[in-house]
């Protein structure tokens, strides 16, 4: 009864063509990067060993391992999280559970968008002016971590707010109706059910923080240190800056060394990201109501 008309058939083939075309373009976006990753693995992979990960650079950073940088990155991330996770979660709780739609809320949202949007080098200038000089922390892990923490604060805020808003409002109404205070409701019902979403955000923040370079260049990360940091007021080496240094600043570095550093850094970041994606998928699959 329905015959495909000439027009219909033409439309159909155009649609197919458009679909294929767009698919190809999407792949063009991804393929180069996969190629690049392959090159990183191919050139940097063979050099990576237990010793490479757990020994210090030698011979003016042209040989040896990356341990001080690896440890430094971990320290920077941990200190940044200690500061930014509580603040970020609290900010998200305020926005999701307390704030109503006022000019102040809009201003806070604008501030968060800008915290995320301001160039990393501007965060670096801020860290230098505020923490290194004004607060007197000097170039230190503390100053660098605070700078990183502020810069990645929006990641935690956005992830937490999303997971808080995914908790159905009826649960809050039910709790309030029982005479629970807002805080009791948040602590007993809202936060526990948003926890995995918050964790996703935190892992994402770890991955962001670990990869940043510019904000720590002038606030706490050193090109090279002959010893490991003893406390949070010491300087430290870091993976991201180490990659910059061995690939641009040091003459006579063997060709594969920067590839290995890059591979370790990328793996660190991507594993964290993948973990956060898997956790998110797992949480979505879990039925709690």
């Amino acid at each position, binding site marked *: 009864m329905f015959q495909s008309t000439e027009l219909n058939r033409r439309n159909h083939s155009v649609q197919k063509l458009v679909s294929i075309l767009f698919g190809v373009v999407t792949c063009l976006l991804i393929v180069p990067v996969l190629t690049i990753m392959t090159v990183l693995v191919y050139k940097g992979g063979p050099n990576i060993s237990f010793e490479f990960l757990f020994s210090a650079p030698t011979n003016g950073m042209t040989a040896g391992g990356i341990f001080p940088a690896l440890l430094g990155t971990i320290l920077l991330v941990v200190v940044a999280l200690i500061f930014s996770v509580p603040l970020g979660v609290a900010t998200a709780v305020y926005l999701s559970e307390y704030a*109503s739609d006022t000019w102040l809320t809009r201003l806070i949202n604008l501030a968060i968008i800008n915290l995320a949007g301001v160039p990393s080098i501007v965060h670096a200038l801020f860290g230098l002016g505020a923490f290194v000089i004004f607060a007197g922390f000097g170039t230190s892990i503390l100053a660098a971590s605070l700078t990183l923490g502020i810069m990645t604060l929006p990641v935690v805020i956005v992830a937490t707010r999303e997971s808080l808003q995914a908790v159905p409002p*009826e*649960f*809050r*109404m*039910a*709790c*309030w*109706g*029982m*005479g*629970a*205070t807002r805080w*009791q409701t948040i602590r*007993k*019902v809202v936060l*526990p*059910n948003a926890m995995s979403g918050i964790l996703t955000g935190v892992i994402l923040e770890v991955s962001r923080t670990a990869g940043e370079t510019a904000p720590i260049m002038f606030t706490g990360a050193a090109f090279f240190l002959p010893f490991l940091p003893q406390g949070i007021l010491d300087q430290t080496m870091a993976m991201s800056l180490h990659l910059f240094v061995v690939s641009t600043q040091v003459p006579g570095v063997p060709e594969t060394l920067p590839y290995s550093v890059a591979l370790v850094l990328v793996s660190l970041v991507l594993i964290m990201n993948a973990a956060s994606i898997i956790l998110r998928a797992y949480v979505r699959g879990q*039925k*709690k*109501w």
Partner: protein
Amino acid sequence: MVGAAIELLVQDLTIRYDNDIALRVDKLEIRKNEIFGIIGPAGSGKTSFLNAINRMDEFNDSMNVQGSINFGGLEVSRVKNVYALRKKIGVVFPLPVGLPLSIYENVALSPRLSGVKDKTKLDEIVERCLIRAALWEEVKDRLHQLGSLLSGGQQQRLTIARALSQEPKLLLLDEFSIAVDPVTTMRIEDVLKELKKEMTVVLVTNLVQQVRRLSERTAFFLNGELVEVGETEDFFTGVVEDQRTRDYVEGRFG
């Protein structure tokens, strides 16, 4: 019945959302230990009335309550600890809400928030409330499963058990049977008949026959107005003053 103690006295109440009036009540008395029915079509202001009683308006910026609601001799708008007020008032919403906690924790939550820590005491409260809500037999072997995954009818009884755990003086039910099967509805109705010995029950419903089965006195709300209050039986024997009440009860609109 005459001279019975008054639990809730409402005078000159006006509820607004922004500038729209949702409900106006000149005077309404609800007596101690009665089941008081409120009927009326959707949008007549029934739910707003319940929200005003336990001051849920504080969670809705656009909602504004004026006038006097006197609960147990106390003006609710002047209560200093609104959370203590809400503990005295149990609420059951139209759609059952099992919190995403275990069945046990659903019922133990309110006592815990009030500071009860003793395990045997909590066990006792949970068991008593679940029994009174006619849910104990079905769940006693799986108290640690999620309450939010029970069937709708079970969740609604869980909600009632939770309300009972507050040891309320006043129980507000907002169209509790809307998402519940008829058998569960009958069971809950039996529960309510028992409960009124201990507390006052306000039953908002759009099922006219439900108030006939349960309540002594009934109010009819229409378009934000209290049309009529009286003995429930009068609504069904035609001894009501307003033609609109008669039409509604007989199912001519609504």
